């Protein structure tokens, strides 16, 4: 591991200023560290300065009507322990619990998960299906980017130099579900996953698939095929077919392409049915 110094700013402005003061390739942002520390250990990342966000006032979870805003440094465990998340965003609850172990989730954060943009993220597909937006702060002020545009590729985000994730905003509570497939049910990497959510405001489905590189993606053709709140079996069939046809599913060392495509139909069907029970 390379030697680094640890900088712990007390305010968001200070944090942004610290980032601005160093060349981007020399700085790493620590928002939990459960993923970052692997790369620092393995030498894949050679940061000379690590900026810890732990003192920033972003360990928050706020419901405003149907809108949920989660501060970027809130530990994941606090999200799953919020009774309203469990009741009103069941897909998010499941996706959060799919990450690592309890002890890991006590330290890992939503901002860290997004910022690291792991292709195997269990959270990104669910955030996609929930139309979540990322609130960013940087030297030139604040901006908001949809998750779909924020996560660009494996380990690549739309973050600009010196920019930080302040919060993630989920616009509305939605019937939602997250279904994953793994070799080992507990504590494993999902090698195929489907996130679905039904937007009451938009009266439409959102469908994301994940588990393969380079990144989780939304599949609009599947959303269209599902149609209104209660899709028929043929609708589901068409939606699954559109994913199998259109999604850029590939093989890696964890699963073959054929197996991943085979999983689309059962995972999608089950996810939509799980939402259907809430819609009823």
């Amino acid at each position, binding site marked *: 591991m390379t030697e680094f110094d640890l900088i712990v700013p007390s305010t968001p402005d200070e944090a942004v200023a610290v980032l601005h003061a160093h060349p981007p390739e020399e700085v790493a942002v620590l928002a939990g560290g459960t993923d970052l520390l692997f790369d620092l250990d393995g030498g894949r990342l050679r940061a000379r300065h690590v900026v810890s966000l732990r003192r920033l006032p972003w360990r928050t979870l706020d419901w405003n009507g149907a809108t949920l805003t989660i501060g970027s440094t809130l530990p994941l465990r606090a999200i799953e322990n919020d009774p309203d998340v469990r009741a009103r965003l069941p897909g998010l609850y499941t996706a959060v619990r799919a990450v690592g172990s309890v002890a890991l989730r006590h330290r890992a954060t939503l901002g860290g998960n997004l910022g690291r943009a792991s292709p195997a993220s269990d959270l990104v597909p669910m955030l996609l299906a929930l139309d979540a937006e990322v609130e960013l702060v940087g030297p030139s002020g604040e901006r908001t980017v949809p998750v779909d545009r924020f996560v660009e590729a494996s380990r690549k985000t739309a973050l600009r130099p010196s920019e930080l994730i302040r919060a993630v905003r989920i616009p509305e509570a939605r019937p939602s579900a997250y279904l994953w*497939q793994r*070799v080992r*049910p507990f*504590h494993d990497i999902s090698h195929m996953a489907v996130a679905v959510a039904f937007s009451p405001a938009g009266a439409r489905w959102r469908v994301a698939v994940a588990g393969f590189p380079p990144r989780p993606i939304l599949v609009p053709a599947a959303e269209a095929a599902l149609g209104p709140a209660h899709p028929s079996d043929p609708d589901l069939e068409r939606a699954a077919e559109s994913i199998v046809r259109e999604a850029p599913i590939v093989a890696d*060392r*964890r699963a073959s392409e054929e*197996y991943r495509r085979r999983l689309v139909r059962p995972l999608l069907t089950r996810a939509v049915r799980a939402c259907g029970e809430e819609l009823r």
Partner: protein
Amino acid sequence: MTGPLRPDLAEKLAGAAGYGVDLDVPGMLWGALVLAPVAHGRLTGVDLAPARALPGVVAIGAEDLPRLLPGREGDRERPAFPTDTIVYRNQPVAAVAAPTLARAREAARAVTVHVEPLPAVVDVESRFPDWPGPEAAGRPEIAAHVRARHGDVEAAFRDAGTVVREIYRTASVHPVALEPHACVADVEGDRWHVRTSTQSPFGVREDVASILGLPESSIVVEGTWVGGGFGGKGASFVEPWALLLAKAAGRPVRLALTYREEFLLGRTTLPAVVRMETAVRDGRITARRVRLLLDVGTSLPGRDFTTGYSIGFLLGPYRTPVFEVEGYAVRTNKPPFGPHRAPFAPQCAFMVESHLEHVAREAGLDPLAFKADHLWQEGDTTPLGQPVLPFGLRTAFEAARGLAAEWRRSAPPGHGIGVGVGFWSTSTGAGGEARVTLTPEGIRIDQAERDIGSGSVLVGLAAVAERRSHLPRERIRVAYADTAHAPYDAGVFGSRTVGALGRAVDEALVEILGRLGARLAARGPVTLGVEDGEVVVRADGGSRPLRALVTPEEERAGGLTASGKHYGRSGVIDEHRVLDGTFYAYTDFTGAAHVAEVAVDRDTGSVRVVRYAAFHDVGTVIDPFTARAQVEGGVGMGIGTALTEEAIWSPEGRLVNPGLLDYRIPTLGEVPPIDVTFVEGFRGAGPFGAKGLGEPPIIPVPATIASAVRDAVGAHVTELPLNPERVTRALSRTNGTEQGP
């Protein structure tokens, strides 16, 4: 029984038990290894200068050995460091030590290894695409060749009503003891001292002597608490490197593998391919033909025992009048093959059980009845011609079959019930000695082994002494000492601790009780007890304080002492049936029948084990608590072999998944409740007729689960592990047409 269930609970729960990784000696340096960058290559140079330039760093390679070991020549076949050829990726080529671990790692990275890569052989099937022919047996890459035959095989296959031919494949599995290999070595003059986490202090001494060319008398090995063994800590591993570093540095050196290294250098059970052919006529097996291609990595020629041993397990505990078996152990550019709780036996049981079930179905027979008809019982002869000794497997199997029928009645759709068997033999051939001392306070057992967690040492040996003497357990203490002070014992492996070392304890105790009996002129058995806080000797209905029976010499010597030895004898096979290589006879016959209920998700291929039952022939239960714990633990481990565990190598010989995230051992969520039943009365070779129990519980698990999966959804999976993708592939092949019985 009063007192704790195990004597080590309080110490371990306090976090006070010192394992190999916890060793911390004043002034010690931290060691690290330099690993080869290719799987096969010509080593043209190892440049240690950049490491040595770092402050406080000691670095050693092959060229330093003559200086460190003047006049000594170690085993040329397994040198501490390679001199000209790299034979597996991550083979240690040099070692460094430094005042801090960070500095040691930095130094290891600074070493330059010059290698000219050579083509690597990684996969046995691509090495021998048409299976090895007779000419292959003499080739250098064949580490062992075994062949045996009995009867007119060709005629039996020609005359059969049904012939079934299948190919099976099994994956490489790693022991995954949670504590990595770790030791602290210290060399003073010609005293080579190492404290280490091991299943066999004397085995480490023997290995170190061989590798470094030292006399055993100059080496002292002291065991620490062991954070799991499972076979992986049965031989030396890090100790020779640590000793060499300590010698070079003139200071103690700690060398522990990282968990990643534990996998990269790991001694695993390697992949195998097996061809099985069975002939059936009128409901009976008339002949079997089994051919094995076993990857043994860089194991040395002549050192492989697994091939000959496992061939017997591939025939299974079934009456087989006519057979032909042949096995090739193939060397590849992978780390050496290593033991893993009943090495390769769970894989063999999976293959033979799945195959015979398939044979029965193809022949239109009920698989369980077919198996029951063929299971060995006392009086049968094994295919290799050894008479079967008392064997409770048939009893266990009938109990399992009855339970399976009961479970099947209540199983919901998508669930399946499977039955599988496994057999094994307690390894009492490896010898052991123990010294027993009786004082008015109680019994002390002096011996060489640390308990590796199974309880076989701390609980098992005490339970043997309790059963023999009737002295309460809290008055019996099991002590250990280093190899300079303890009597010899081969090690805690092979399910032998209670069976072999326990017999040594029993023998010593019998001698002491005999001496006391003579002093009392006892007519009946002599036992011990405690009255008024003191040990008493009981015989013929009376009791006398031990104090009153001890001679002054014995009192001065600290009590009555006797030594026991047990060097067990194995049975005999019919050597006329052996055509090449070494086959092994069994000391005793132990076995188990398991029942599993699984839920299989047809769409995803996921298998969940819902409930599990195990029926074990143990001869005699010595300690019910630890016996049950062994079965629960073995089943838990077997679920990993069955469903999730697989070390995967790239075609270039790189281990793809060297970590606990992608090498998946079961978590709490994958292991269901396990019912354990013991079958007693079929006496084995151990004390009071006990049979070994460390290894047998893992053996039937993959077979049992595979059978249950087939019962649930008709998927006949011929590869381990049965991960979801393999189950879906098997389902596609059968197209879901097969129905459970």
